[in-house]
């Protein structure tokens, strides 16, 4: 009991200090990464460009990873369907832009870049709004139909259901849109500005900044609001939380809503940054994000973000050194090594694992 009460108190002063420390560390980390690349590539411009690539990719992974980690934190379920939820998000974003096939009403009927800044902002806002809502609600529905009935079942049961849901999402989308790539108009202008000898595109900056904002809002929500406290309490001890009067179903639903919304946002990035979406991109994205979540210590928000960026850094590093064909393998080797030395992930708490 007591401990739940403790954790339910709003983020305390030391945690703020810790947050600043976190920012410091991340900046140092990025700098080190840059220097290593600079050394290996011997070209500042390219190194900068690669760091930009890594950060953008990492932002997307992190957003998806957050969905995994929150759901895990609250009901200890690896939501395998989350990658495909993200995929659906990218399609919703696409449909919002092009208004195909059934988004005539809310659709934006765009085919190319939008140069007028206010208009662009408005369009992006619409994209985020639609994508995040739709996908968030989708995620809640999934929880309601597929996971809630199994809350007391043995652990393997909901895991398998999750795999089932992921297969369903993938195939439904495939039936709707077919198997090929679906090109998505990039409404954000592809202009770039020079920075440290590289040409950084605005879309990169946009993605990273938006992602960080979303993450900050999330921490505020979890740390400061009643619902956030309820989530943390539930995450720590469902029964205790219930006894303290937390509405379990509502809290879990909210968690899925937020996780889905973040995936929806990531979907918008996917369509805007890569300019295409495909029915099967959920699997790999999910794999990476899931890896990221575990790497950072599943259940730990900061960890998920950290993991997301680390995965991206590793991948870009491999690619930058002409080892793209191995990057997937390298990522998993890194994961396994980390888990061997830190069984609960980088930021996970290492207790009670000896039994």
């Amino acid at each position: 009991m007591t401990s739940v009460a403790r954790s339910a108190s709003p983020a305390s002063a030391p945690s703020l200090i810790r947050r600043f420390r976190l920012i410091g560390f991340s900046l140092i980390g990025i700098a080190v990464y840059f220097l290593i690349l600079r050394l290996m590539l011997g070209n500042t411009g390219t190194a900068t460009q690669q760091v930009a690539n890594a950060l953008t990719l990492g932002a997307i992974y992190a957003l998806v990873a957050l969905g995994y980690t929150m759901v895990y934190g609250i009901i200890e379920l690896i939501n395998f369907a989350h990658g495909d939820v993200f995929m659906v998000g990218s399609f919703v974003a696409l449909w919002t832009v092009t208004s195909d096939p059934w988004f005539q009403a809310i659709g934006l009927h765009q085919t190319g870049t939008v140069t007028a800044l206010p208009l662009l902002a408005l369009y992006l806002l619409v994209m985020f709004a639609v994508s995040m809502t739709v996908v968030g609600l989708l995620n809640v529905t999934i929880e309601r139909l597929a996971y809630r009935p199994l809350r007391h079942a043995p652990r393997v049961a909901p895991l398998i259901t999750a795999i089932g849901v992921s297969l369903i999402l993938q195939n439904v989308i495939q039936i709707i849109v077919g198997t090929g790539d679906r090109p998505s108009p990039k409404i954000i202008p592809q202009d770039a500005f020079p920075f440290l000898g590289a040409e950084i595109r605005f879309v990169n900056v946009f993605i990273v900044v938006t992602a960080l904002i979303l993450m900050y809002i999330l921490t505020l929500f979890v740390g400061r609001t009643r619902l956030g406290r309820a989530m943390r309490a539930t995450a720590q001890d469902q029964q205790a939380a219930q006894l303290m009067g937390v509405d379990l179903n509502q809290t879990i639903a909210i968690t899925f809503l937020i996780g889905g919304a973040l995936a929806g946002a990531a979907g918008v990035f996917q369509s805007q940054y890569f300019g295409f979406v495909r029915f099967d991109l959920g699997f790999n994205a999910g794999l990476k994000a899931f890896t990221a979540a575990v790497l950072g210590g599943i259940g730990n928000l900061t960890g998920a973000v950290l993991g997301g960026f680390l995965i991206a850094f590793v991948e870009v590093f491999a690619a930058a050194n002409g080892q793209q064909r191995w990057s997937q393998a390298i990522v998993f080797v890194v994961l396994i090594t980390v888990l061997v030395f830190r069984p609960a992930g980088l930021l996970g708490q290492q207790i009670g694992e000896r039994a």
Partner: protein
Amino acid sequence: MKLRQVGAIAGIGVLVLAGCNQGGTSGGGSKGTVNIAIELPQQGSEKAASDPIINGIKLAVKDAGGVAGNYKIEIPNSVIYDDAKDGAHDPQTGAQNMSAIAANANVIAVIGPLNSSVAKVQIPISNEAGLLQCSPANTNEGLTKPEFGALDIRKANPNKINYVRVVTTDDNQGPAAAKYILEVLKKTKVYIIDDTETFGKGISDNFQKYLEANGGTVVARDGVPKTTTDYSAILTAAKAKGPEAIYFGGVTATGGARILKAAVAAGMADVPYIGPDGIYDGSGATKDSFLNLAGDDAKNAFATAAAVGDFPGRADFEAKFKAEYNTAPTGYSATGYACAQVVIDAIKRAGDAANMGELREKVRAAAVDPSINYTSVIGAFKFDANGDTSQKIISFYGYDATAKDWAFKSQLDFAK
């Protein structure tokens, strides 16, 4: 075992009778009906590649009036096999299909498969069964050429060729692209990116061999599986190496257009982008085609095709195809059509036979006969002693921004 044979014989008996009954009726089909089996992956991203082939084959049969010699030709769905399992081509399923096809007495020949890895498990079976197999798409040398280990595959009857293909092998198309880059585009520093699959990687290897042997340099080479979404990192890295041209080994479904877009985004819009016939898959109007996905980013794109580009028959083939299915044909629809033409022609020349077993053998022999000259929708060719097409003409296409389609540039004959 026994039962099965009895059944087969009975079946054949019935067929023969049927033949006799309608013997009076003049014209084609008097000797009964034979099937041409089709064996292609029809799931996941490969469906997009296979459907045009199937359409091409059906069109060829239709154009032949559904008749060859005294036999009626049909392609019921029950002989259209799908070697995909769990959403992608699967050798085990392919082998299973091939034994089913071989066991189906009505099947006179089979057209397929799409993937060389599937062909590798099917050829041993069709070879042992002595069944004519024509692939519209396999380009891997190992399937036919002894020096690449083909004899391990056709162990049963090494000298009784049953597998032919109407597309030339990687060791022609790859080098042709290299030659084109060196001599026509006058570029020497090339960045190669392949899709790590049999076709893409094989063709890239051959491309690289020829390029380096003829004064070109490969500034970097990457392999990216088709599931990749983020290409920005490798292309940034490639850009730093200052390539004058990019060669993509693969097909649209494995990322052809994605990589082009990423290259443009990485600031290589002016660097020529060359790919094999895997990206020569129809105009910008065709759904899922390279040009359709790439849009205007394709302004510096080039494609090679293992077929004659500028022969008269082609235009009206495309017209006919469009009329039939109201989408433009892909390079593969043409080769599929050509395979069907080969089979039909072989049946004609094979003449009548007492039973299906004999007919099969006759058709096989007639088809692979090295002395025969085929005139097909992809031009005139023969088969050599290994069943490879003699037609080693590679055509080059460039992007025509106004028509949003490929425009024939020139062609090159490797046979000479």
